[in-house]
């Protein structure tokens, strides 16, 4: 009896899983492929040597184009994932002689990808949780700044603590900084209906200028040596490196925390009553009210969770990589996060995959610039194209003659003005 039941359950579970695997992944994958193709065209179009070669004849032009693209993209892939030949040589040297330095160096590209992916995951989750709750959190960047200040302050100002107290304290400071900063527009939305898009943007400006004030030469948090940077945080608050022997490798425990955060977001959204409330308010606030949920309370909770996650992006980045906070230090993670949430369909695991992709794009782009002399801007163009194709799936559907996707839990990205 129970066995039979299990069977029918499996049968019903299957189509959902397949839909996730195919429907969920197909569009992003095709978007990436399409963006790479268009990116190749941009690379060719902006390369002077290709233009010269076409001047000699079509054949020479095509050959030259192919060389340029293959050099650019192979630099890109080795920059993002490492060079297999070097990795093999490094590994055999490590095994035969016990000297792991070459192996470690060959791992540098992939660790850079993961290092970039870490703040991306946190920030992407932040925006994704907001989307699930029907809120467009454009404020991840500002939350990142405030959390950066609180984290770094706890990190350098408190001394003589063992690491197992100091480090969690610094992380919590980041969570609180982001959460409080996000809760303000959340509260305004819940109480007055003020649109969170406007308010989070404004909160961003306040955060940027506030951080500037705090860190500028002579500011309350400036180091005092004439540079607009904070003091270095205590060793007891730093996140451990995975390969401490190689100082270039900045890959750290923050990545594990990011994966834990993704699991937490998934658990919260899909396994708890709080997540049920967040998703219901996001999908149909009228039904949520009908069901006896407090829509204002849920909005504030959603923003607090989102802000806390954005705060962790700053905390892990500062405690694991930079170890101090410079003025105007952000790398735009909070804004890229909107794209990540979209790309990952606002699903925590989708966000993780999207973050890995963006991490790879970033670290590959540097190599592409260094070796193939393709400007960094090309990566930005690639990112932009991918996002456009994700945000407008009809383009991809039309391009590849895909049928419309099955209707499922659709995301309400944003609602009009004043609608709750």
């Amino acid at each position, binding site marked *: 009896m129970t066995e039979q039941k299990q069977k029918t*359950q499996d049968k019903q579970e299957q189509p959902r899983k397949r839909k996730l695997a195919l429907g969920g992944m197909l569009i992003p994958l095709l978007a990436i492929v399409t963006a790479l193709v268009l990116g190749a065209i941009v690379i060719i179009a902006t390369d002077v040597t290709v233009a010269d070669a076409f001047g000699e004849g079509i054949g020479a032009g095509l050959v030259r184009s192919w060389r340029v693209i293959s050099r650019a993209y192979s630099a890109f892939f080795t920059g993002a994932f490492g060079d297999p030949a070097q990795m093999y040589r490094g590994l055999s040297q490590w095994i035969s002689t016990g000297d792991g330095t070459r192996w470690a160096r060959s791992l540098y590209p992939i660790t850079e990808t993961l290092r970039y992916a870490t703040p991306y995951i946190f920030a992407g989750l932040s925006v994704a949780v907001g989307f699930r709750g029907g809120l467009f959190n454009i404020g991840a960047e500002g939350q990142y700044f405030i959390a950066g200040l609180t984290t770094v302050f706890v990190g350098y100002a408190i001394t003589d603590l063992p690491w197992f107290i100091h480090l969690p304290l610094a992380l919590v400071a980041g969570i609180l900084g982001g959460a409080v900063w996000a809760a303000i527009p959340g509260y305004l939305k819940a109480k007055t209906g003020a649109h969170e898009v406007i308010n989070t943007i404004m909160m961003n400006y306040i955060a940027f200028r506030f951080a500037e004030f705090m860190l500028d030469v002579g500011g309350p948090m400036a180091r005092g040596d004439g540079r607009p940077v904070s003091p270095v945080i205590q060793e007891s608050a730093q996140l451990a490196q995975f390969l401490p022997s190689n100082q270039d490798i900045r890959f750290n425990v923050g990545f594990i925390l990011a994966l834990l955060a993704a699991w937490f977001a998934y658990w919260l959204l899909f396994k708890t009553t709080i997540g049920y*409330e967040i998703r219901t308010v996001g999908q149909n606030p009228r*039904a949520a*009210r009908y069901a006896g949920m407090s829509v204002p309370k849920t909005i504030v909770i959603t923003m607090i969770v989102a802000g806390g996650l954005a705060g962790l992006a700053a905390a892990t980045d500062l405690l694991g990589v930079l170890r101090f906070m410079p003025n105007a230090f952000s790398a735009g993670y909070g804004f890229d996060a909107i794209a990540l949430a979209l790309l990952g369909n606002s699903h925590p695991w989708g966000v993780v995959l999207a973050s890995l992709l963006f991490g790879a794009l970033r670290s590959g782009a540097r190599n592409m610039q260094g070796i193939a002399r393709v400007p960094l801007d090309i990566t930005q163009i690639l990112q932009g194209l991918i996002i456009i194709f994700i945000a407008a799936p009809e383009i991809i559907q039309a391009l590849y003659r895909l049928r419309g996707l099955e*209707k499922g*839990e659709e995301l309400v990205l944003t609602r009009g003005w004043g609608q709750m």
Partner: protein
Amino acid sequence: MPPVLELKGITKRFPGVLANDHIDVTLNEGEVLTLLGENGAGKSTLMNVLYGLYTPDEGEIYVRGEKVDIRGPNDAIDLGIGMVHQHFMLVPVLTVVENVMLGMESIKNGIFLDLEDAAQRIREISEQYGLNVDPYALVGELPVGLQQRVEITKLLYRKADILILDEPTAVLTPQEVEGLFEVIRSLLSKGKSIIFISHKLKEVLEISDNIAVLRGGRVVGYAKPDESNERSLASLMVGREVILTVPKGPAQPADVVLEVQDLRALDDRHHLALRGVSFDVRAGEIVGVAGVQGNGQTELIEVLTGLRSPASGTVRLMGHNVTDATPRIITEMGSAHIPEDRQRDGLVMGYPVADNMILNTYYLPPVAEGILMQEAAVRERAERLVEEYDVRTPSVITPAGNLSGGNQQKVIVARELSREVKLVIASQPTRGLDVGSIEYIHSQLVRKRDEGAAVLVVSAELDEVLSLADRIIVMFEGQVMDIVSAETATKEELGLLMAGVHEDAPVAAGEEVAA
């Protein structure tokens, strides 16, 4: 003489659905052809084909004996075919004449609208067909019945002589329906021909010359009104024998469960929507609220379920004051609510059926322990309810939005009535549903009554209120016109009350409240 309109073998396929399957219908001049069928039977598809909105996959259309190719509404209008949609296509802030001339404006001196010229033509049309419309009235201020006549005027202004009326009586009081039928008769006498779409059997029998019954995209039978009756049409429409009246014994009213006293409330535009409403509902009885839509019923239900704060007055549930209680408190006290707009309020369309089944109990054991949702319990409960309430769904993880309207409503009914409830508040519980689902939902409401629950049903369908309720409250402009026994009430009496006419006492003057 050839018929005015002939559709031959019309077939329209959508991916996975055969919406129209070789449909043949004929409309003779000066006659009413009724298309009778449930939702999804293919009526709308057929009319959209005729109106040029869809291109048929097969089949031919003949107008006055000539084969025609209709590629869009403009072609249809050129051929003299006009349609009054179920939801009026009027601009409320414009006057009648501005609405009517919209799209084919009379122009003078090159760029100026010639309103007077158009108004004069509207007056002529109005007089000719007895429409009684004032060209300079603001459309938004007209009652629904008159707005409908403006729509008809629009068609006549465009010289239509084949008029399609899509569910025209859905929004009207019985008296307004009579008025509409007079207009229809006057149109017929002047040689116009009409296609009437409806699923209300009584009206169909009264006004039609010919009836085509559609089911599952096919014509399943043709009928003449003098050779048919409601029962035969209903079984043709549904495909099996149906019970038209609700089988129920006499009510056994017990203690008062819901007590409403002198309730006043504002609507969303801050106008007084409830002007001192008082009534009670006892355990073991069904109280129906009749009235034309927009007379305060929506606001009343919202106040009773905690979704709207009243301006004054009290609501008591089993003796406890719940006037300002939240929806959750009211639900937890044993009140069930089947909302008026199931898709907007009652369901999360993207959620699976199983998640919709727990919409207001998601935080209670056994579906949640603390903050942890118990997926197995959620699924088990959904599977049980789907079985018990006969919800037709591929599985409990199918999104609610993929179900038909009737099955969506059954999800709500299952969720609300499967709880231990002392009060059931059902608003338009069968709106837009097919006969089979209506039958089912009625029987469930009666079952709850017989189990000792108090039931309050709001419906715009007078027939529904009459057959389901034990007592009937008639609302007009935010007031209770009267409370009558369903056994002795007649449709005419209720119709007058719904229109605000009280035989015994004049209506108290309403008060206006500033925002």
